[in-house]
């Protein structure tokens, strides 16, 4: 690859994708890989930020992997989660992380959170309309201008929708969503949001065969992430284990009856 110089009239600007497509670094087009997917990822707003919780299982016709990381920091203040085709999802993650960094280096300022959310729309649209390997992301982050946590979800054609409460993606969504609907309140504390998020994921793992719940045998637990004014941070393994242990014990006490002890 030579030095990528452009004249002023056809310069791709700070968009990495525009540059990469022009130079053949990324190619869009159909392929015929095996469909590995299914997931549950949740993002919910609380008073001073957002919480994201995601399961760790990759599922094909069988369990392909138990420790996939489906939530990644897209940059310091933004979390990006993926559902759908693993191959395309991982590429989407890499491309998005790089695009935000590329923009920052080219222009010496970072994209606004809304700018990041909108940037994803055409990428999803192009991917989902050109291959059967669908990808649906979930973007959540701390908006440094508005000074609040914000959540954005997408439809299959790339439409971007901001949610004022919570959003879920993946095959376990109906169960997670049901739990969130019952438990969500505006202006929750971080602790309440973490508890509700963990419970919603537990429910999804309980009912959806393609969502991995807490695995106490292997000590593999859903990822729990907090994004606030301090940035993106992942909860420690021990902390997450305690939260799921508490839910599991309550469920055991109620004889496995969901709703026996809701919180």
């Amino acid at each position, binding site marked *: 690859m030579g030095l*990528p110089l452009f004249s002023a009239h056809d310069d791709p600007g700070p968009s990495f994708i525009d*540059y990469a497509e022009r130079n053949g*670094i990324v190619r869009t087009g159909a392929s015929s890989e095996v469909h590995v997917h299914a997931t549950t990822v949740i993002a919910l707003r609380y008073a001073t930020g957002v919480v994201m919780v995601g399961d760790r299982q990759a599922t094909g016709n069988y369990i392909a992997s138990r420790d996939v990381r489906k939530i990644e920091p897209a940059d310091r203040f933004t979390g990006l989660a993926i559902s759908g085709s693993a191959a395309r999802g991982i590429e989407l993650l*890499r491309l998005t992380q790089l695009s935000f*960094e*590329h923009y920052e*280096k*080219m222009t*010496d300022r970072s994209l606004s959170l809304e700018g990041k959310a909108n940037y994803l729309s055409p990428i999803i649209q192009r991917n989902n309309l050109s291959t059967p390997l669908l990808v649906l992301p979930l973007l959540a982050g701390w908006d440094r201008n508005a000074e609040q946590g914000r959540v954005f979800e997408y439809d299959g054609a790339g439409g971007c929708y901001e949610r004022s409460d919570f959003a879920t993606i993946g095959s376990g969504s109906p169960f997670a969503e049901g739990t969130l609907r019952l438990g969500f309140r505006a202006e929750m504390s971080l602790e309440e949001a973490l508890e509700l998020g963990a419970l919603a994921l537990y429910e999804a793992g309980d009912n959806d065969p393609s969502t991995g719940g807490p695995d106490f045998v292997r000590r593999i637990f859903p990822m729990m992430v907090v994004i606030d004014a301090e940035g993106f941070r992942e909860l420690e393994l021990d902390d997450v284990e305690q939260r799921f242990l508490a839910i599991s014990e309550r469920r055991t006490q109620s004889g496995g009856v969901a709703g026996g002890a809701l919180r």
Partner: protein
Amino acid sequence: MSNYFYVSPEQLIKDRAEFAQKGIARGRSIVGAIYNKGVVLVAENPSASLNKISEVYDRIAFAGVGKYNEFDRLREAGIRWADGTGYTYSREDVDARALANYYAQYLGDMFTEGQKPLEVEILIAQLGSKLRPTKLYRIAYEGTISDEPHFVVLGGDAETIKERFAQSAPELEALDATLKHAVAALAGPDRTIPVQELEVGILEDRGGRRTFRRLSVDEVSGLLD
């Protein structure tokens, strides 16, 4: 049909070199120096938004002097090259030497074949790792590339500033001492540069992947005190 007059290659090269040198000497200088924990780039720059120093990659920084539009285009190409290479292969495969060579080839081509040579000089700094050493590559307007062991001065009255810095800082020092000597060398004995007109960037390991950081006016005045 227009008439062409014969110009000897020697004369042509001399004219082009003079033209480029004049353009570069008009601008203010940049000092790039290695200190005990990293690399510091110091530019005298009255503008707070038109940068001369920039991040290129995790361990690579760029500095340019001369015509802003020309070196900024090279800066953008460098970022694209680095991000494209890192995406195609791996982050650790992005090497400053390869980038410096591309710049050298391009500047060399423009010098001999372009409508006019580019009036720029650039510096590519690399913070060392297990894989690669800490390096400062200076690329001149005609494509000459040099690999400087300790420090580099670009643009303006480079020779004088180089002598001043070499005398005051013969060895590797801490960041504050290196910065002081660089600023003193840029200013010379008869004037002081206001802190607001200094653009300072460093490459230093802080535990993360990206090592480039701009120093704020407050940080710079703190280090200079």
